[in-house]
């Protein structure tokens, strides 16, 4: 008889034990996979929030701009370069921006604001800005109006149709001032943007800051995270000093670290869980072996090779683990897929705690393959370790004593 068949029959000699052991693996896999899915889901939400609402995956900047964000560290983007970047495979959209800090004044009040000159059509392709307009309208190319965040608008007591004065420092220290009608009010899911962002047409911004044709950054979007390294490589060959390329993770090292620390925490927790499960399997294996000492001794006595016996015992553990892993995977795919399509919304103080972290108040799930295959790999390693016990025990089995026992 083939050894897998023997092993399969052996594990069903004590159904209850096999099922309980498999259930512990099942439970561990489901739990670890759901938790990983929630973690990865929230990370991609956090990354999306900065990447898709603001920074983009990649930016082309003047090389000193990141360390010293002044309007003097701007550059003129040539049409040929802009065309070449747009043609890079994987790049889905690009958008030029001229960004600086200015004072925004209504009739009565003044507040500092981040003023961003955009190409309305390109910007919409990158950040979907039009979607977040709650009052008024979006900008059209050459527009003389501005868009502002709802919190900033209510602070300044202005609404659509009112006029706002922007006052700042222009290119090479000239003073910049201009009057603009409010065309639309937006509300992003993240309050820090609503408090301080003002958008206007790129041409208007260049006039305001006395910086014709100059931009602070060219935002480059790729389809997702995974396309970024290739696009970056292609960009690096196109961009030479005095320009440079920055990716979102270089621009947001804090976020990268926060995710890394959280991911480490999750890994430690999963490690604890799996160690416990491994001990559970080990317990079962010890029992299986103790119970069958005599039977194994008889097998050896009648001429079965020890190696073959060890192989059968190993297969038994593998089968039990497989039972748990397969059902666990099926269960976790079901749970994660459901929550991926039906994310859980958070309300109240919990929501406030989320937005303070710069995250949309949603428990997002991820269906990244690694969420699932990591569990399989982990269980596989556990099985390898646990199966050392019966192998060593079989090898050391003293047949005469065992026969008598």
């Amino acid at each position, binding site marked *: 008889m083939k050894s897998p068949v023997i092993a399969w029959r052996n594990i069903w000699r004590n159904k209850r034990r096999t099922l309980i052991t498999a259930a512990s693996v099942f439970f561990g896999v489901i739990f670890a996979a759901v938790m990983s899915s929630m973690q990865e889901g929230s990370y991609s939400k956090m990354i999306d929030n900065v990447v898709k609402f603001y920074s983009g995956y990649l930016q082309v900047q003047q090389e000193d701009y990141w360390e010293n964000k002044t309007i003097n560290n701007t550059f003129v983007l040539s049409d040929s370069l802009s065309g070449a970047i747009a043609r890079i495979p994987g790049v889905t959209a690009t958008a030029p921006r001229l960004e600086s*800090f200015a004072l925004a004044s209504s009739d009565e009040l003044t*507040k500092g604001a981040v003023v961003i000159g955009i190409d309305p059509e390109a910007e919409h392709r990158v950040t979907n800005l039009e979607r977040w307009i709650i009052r008024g309208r979006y900008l059209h190319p050459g527009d003389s109006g501005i868009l502002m965040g709802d919190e900033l608008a209510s602070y300044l007591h202005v609404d659509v149709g009112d006029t706002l004065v922007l006052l700042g420092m222009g290119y090479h220290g000239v003073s910049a001032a201009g009057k603009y009608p409010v065309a639309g009010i937006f509300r992003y899911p993240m309050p820090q943007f609503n408090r301080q962002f003002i958008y206007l047409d790129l041409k208007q911004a260049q006039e305001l800051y006395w910086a014709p044709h100059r931009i602070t950054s060219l935002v480059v979007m790729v389809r997702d995270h995974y396309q970024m390294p290739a696009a970056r490589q292609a960009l690096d060959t196109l961009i030479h000093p005095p320009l440079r390329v920055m990716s979102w993770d270089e621009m947001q090292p804090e976020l990268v670290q926060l995710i890394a620390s959280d991911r480490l925490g999750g890994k430690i927790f999963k490690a604890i869980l799996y160690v416990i499960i491994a001990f559970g399997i080990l317990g079962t294996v010890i029992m299986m072996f103790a119970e069958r000492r005599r039977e194994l001794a008889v097998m050896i006595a009648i001429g079965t090779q020890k190696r073959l016996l060890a192989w059968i015992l190993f297969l038994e553990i593998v089968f039990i683990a497989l039972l748990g892993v397969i059902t666990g995977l099926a269960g976790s795919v079901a749970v994660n897929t459901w929550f991926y399509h039906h994310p859980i919304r958070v309300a109240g103080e919990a929501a406030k705690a989320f937005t303070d972290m710069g995250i949309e108040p949603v428990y997002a799930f991820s269906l990244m393959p690694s969420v699932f295959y990591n569990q399989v790999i982990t269980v596989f390693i556990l099985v390898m370790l646990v199966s050392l016990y019966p192998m060593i025990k079989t090898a050391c089995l003293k047949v005469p004593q065992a026969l008598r026992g």
Partner: protein
Amino acid sequence: MLIAISWRNIWRNKLRSLVVIIAITLGIMAGVFSTAFMKGMMVQRLETAIRSEISNLQVHDSLFRITGELKYFIPKGMALAGSIDTLEHVRGTAPRIIVQAMISSAEAGSGVSVLGIEPEREKKVTDIIDHLEEGQYLEGVRRNPILISRKLADKLNLHLRSRVVLTLQDLDRNLTADAFRVAGIYRTTNTSYDEVHVFVRYDDLLRLTALPDGAVHEIAVRTDDDRFTPAVQQAIRHLAPRLEVLTWEQISPELRYIVAAMDQYMYLFIAIILLALLFGIINTMLMVILERRKEIGMLLAIGMSRLRVFGMILLETVMLTMAGGIVGIVGGILVSKYFEVHYIDLSMFGKGLEQWGYNSLVHTRIDPALVVTVTLMVIFTGIVAALYPAWKAIRYDPAEALRTE
């Protein structure tokens, strides 16, 4: 008697019992330690919020917090702060002028909240002085000293003694500006707070904003201990019935929420560990009663009541679980105690954690309530794990069980 029997029974198969006990020990130890770790991190966040940012209580004009406008000041705030100082259990009061302004270096600008403070009184309320990295606390510069954070200094390329210009709207809505010189650079563990808060002398800001003498926007109050906060709140309300007097919890309810949510999360964490352990315990106990079928049959045959047999198995399981549980709890407490004095260094994630206000050097914190709850949870797990095997045991038919080999 039953206890002694059960305890001896556990050690009849040392290896098997040890595997279960070790698994429980590891799981509980990890659970207790992780909880102490998370608790420590949260408590530190809370303490930073009270010591460096919010203080125990804040007094404002009832419209100031919503609008942030300069005109909603407390007219005789200085005098009020003086009388609050004489209240019982008040450690110190810090009257402040708060105004939104644009801070600009030679090249770049940013929006900040400027706090006009009285250094001597502020030192009794906030611990910013302990977080000075360079220079002094609004001293060492003769005219218009300003204290800025490391984060802002890096952003605007500023150094000690650098000149900055604050541009703001005064009480008569005129745009005014004045030059300040960096007297000190501070850095708390919350870089998001740091980035938008700068400190200048009360008198300098009073002159610049054209506010009347003695006007303040905020009086921050530190109490001797947070448990006196509600009493002090009442006393201040009595002194100034028209003003808004809020505790830190009312100002930032999400802080309390995060602590509470983290507590729940950690109990869930321990519950999941126990659930994983449950499978192993049930399996072991099932094995135990199967092995001792004959013996249990004998006990029943010689007249031991089923209730006592049930009790014996139950006790055996609970004691087995508790043996691991106690070692785990004690071990977890010892490790946590060690890190209460020393600290866990997470500075590899420092930037990320500090952006969200968490200290990267974490001191663990053992909550006595946690120890009690975990002990109860372990006992409960033992009981649940015992139910099925004990039920199986008392359903043995003595006559049949006696006949087993």
